[in-house]
């Protein structure tokens, strides 16, 4: 079983986001890049599958700040092969990425390709289904549990309200992971450091980046809310008093 996981770095939403002077893109000069949280689940799911059924896990990341960190962390968790894709990925859309990834992934003879279900900065769909079509593979997204047998993958797909569908997909396939069967494992920094010494990152170059199929953004802006909360200020003690008064007013105390 040859499992490939695509991981992506996204700006951390906890930091302040700013629009660049051109007005049509994010200013990412000071962005803090973190792994898309669904990719963390995809890596976990890949490693769980390997632990249960053997095989290898290859993690593929585009060369952006923080890529090495993501790769060595994955290695510390049990990933076997680490690949960094070189190219100018700043502001590149998912259509371009999917095409670039397809060229690399084709060579890797994957049985299963796992991606995060989506990322918060997508504007032209998710890379997973775009890649699936480039590779002529089936795609299922919103997946939260996978097993493999006899050239088929049995998975759980999430619908709203907690409803699940069990689906059977022929492999090779691309799956968009919403959640791994268990929370992504924690690895100690010391283990990541060790992985830096024992594993190596292969570098490959993206052939070309063809963004055709994505929209052009004319303007980006921060939404103006129709309303804003009435803020309750003060020391914790004062705030607690005011909240108790509010609870009384609302008839729950």
């Amino acid at each position, binding site marked *: 079983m040859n499992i490939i996981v695509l991981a992506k770095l996204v*700006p951390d*939403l*906890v930091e*302040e986001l700013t*629009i660049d002077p051109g007005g049509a893109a994010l200013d990412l000069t000071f962005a803090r890049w973190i792994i898309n949280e669904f990719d963390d689940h995809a890596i976990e799911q890949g490693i769980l599958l390997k632990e249960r059924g053997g095989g290898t896990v290859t993690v593929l990341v585009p060369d952006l700040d923080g890529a090495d960190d993501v790769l060595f962390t994955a290695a510390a968790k049990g990933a076997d092969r680490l690949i960094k894709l070189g190219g100018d990925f700043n502001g590149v859309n998912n259509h371009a990425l*999917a095409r670039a990834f397809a060229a690399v992934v084709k060579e890797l003879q994957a049985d299963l390709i796992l991606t995060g*279900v989506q990322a*918060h*900065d*997508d504007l*032209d*769909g*998710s890379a997973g*289904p*775009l890649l699936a*079509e480039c590779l002529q593979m*089936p*795609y299922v*997204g*919103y997946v939260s549990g996978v097993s493999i047998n006899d050239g088929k993958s*049995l998975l759980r797909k*999430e619908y*709203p*309200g*907690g*409803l*699940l*569908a*069990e*689906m*059977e*997909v*022929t492999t090779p396939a691309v799956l*968009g992971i*919403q959640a791994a069967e268990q929370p992504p494992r924690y690895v100690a920094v010391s283990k990541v450091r060790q992985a830096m010494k024992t594993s190596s990152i292969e570098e490959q170059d993206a052939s070309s980046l063809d963004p055709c*199929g*994505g*929209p*052009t*953004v*004319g303007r*980006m*802006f*921060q*939404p103006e*809310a129709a*309303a*804003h*909360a*009435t*803020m*309750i*200020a003060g020391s914790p003690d004062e*705030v607690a008093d005011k*909240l*108790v008064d509010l*609870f009384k007013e609302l*008839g*729950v*105390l």
Partner: protein
Amino acid sequence: MSQDIYVLIEHLRGQVAELSYTMLAAGRELAQGAGGNVVAVLLGHNAKELGKDFAADKVLYLDHALLADFTSDAYQKALADLIGKDQPRAVLFGNSSIGADVASVLSMRLDLPLVSSCRSFTQDGKFVSQICGGKIMAEGELPGPTALVTMVPGGYQPDQGRSAAAPSITEAPVPALEALRVALSKYIEPETGDVDISKEPLLIAVGRGIQNKDNIELAENLAQAIGGVVCGSRPVIDQGWLATSRLVGKSGKHVKPKIYFAMGISGAPEHAEAIMQSDTIIAINTDPKAPIFDVAKYGVEGDIFDLVEVLTEKVQQAK
């Protein structure tokens, strides 16, 4: 080629998704500008009657046994055929478990442009997408000739997508659905759990800001003092800190309590859409710019860990 706006109707086990009505309303806005019709596209098996309350000029109904339940492969095949032949101005899909599995694949297969996470259209037909957890909007010209668009809720009232007058329903041909690679085995019912949070009047909700499983106890104590129930955002459930039955949001439950007390929840669209029907939302967050403050009636810019124990004590005393 036409100026029609096609809307892919999503339905599961006989129930049309609210988002589909939102999209019919969005489709109307777009069709008026473009000078075309709103066409609801319904795929199913013996499911024609689902179309009777659509606010559409026309329903195109594709009936096939293999379309009885959603699978990505069958939907992609049927839609690729239809869109390829009809070439409407735009096709609206949900940014959902159904629409997102289909739209991107069709974009590559048919070589048509795709816009995702669209929340609304401007009067002159531009798309406005919501990204970065609701913190950023991106606006642009709707690409042509046929734009595929995935939509999030919030921009239109679903009721505007409903109509008392049944639209005309036309059967459309279904291409051969052979060699499908995806098959539904069965549905697995939601975990019921001990409580049904969609019916609880007082919810104490925790998000990633609660930091770890041990801290859930702080929320439990407050809930107990005030007579409420604890629930949480997706990361809290995915980390295994709370049971799945306590998930609030797009993939969990929609709730409508008297009070929704949100601690350490940012208010991402996937969470916010499910709490809008609460009577009063109160939020505590260290980030004054957290989008949760745009939907909350009352807010506290502060730290859970400074406030909750004091609050729990005071609630106990007040009883």
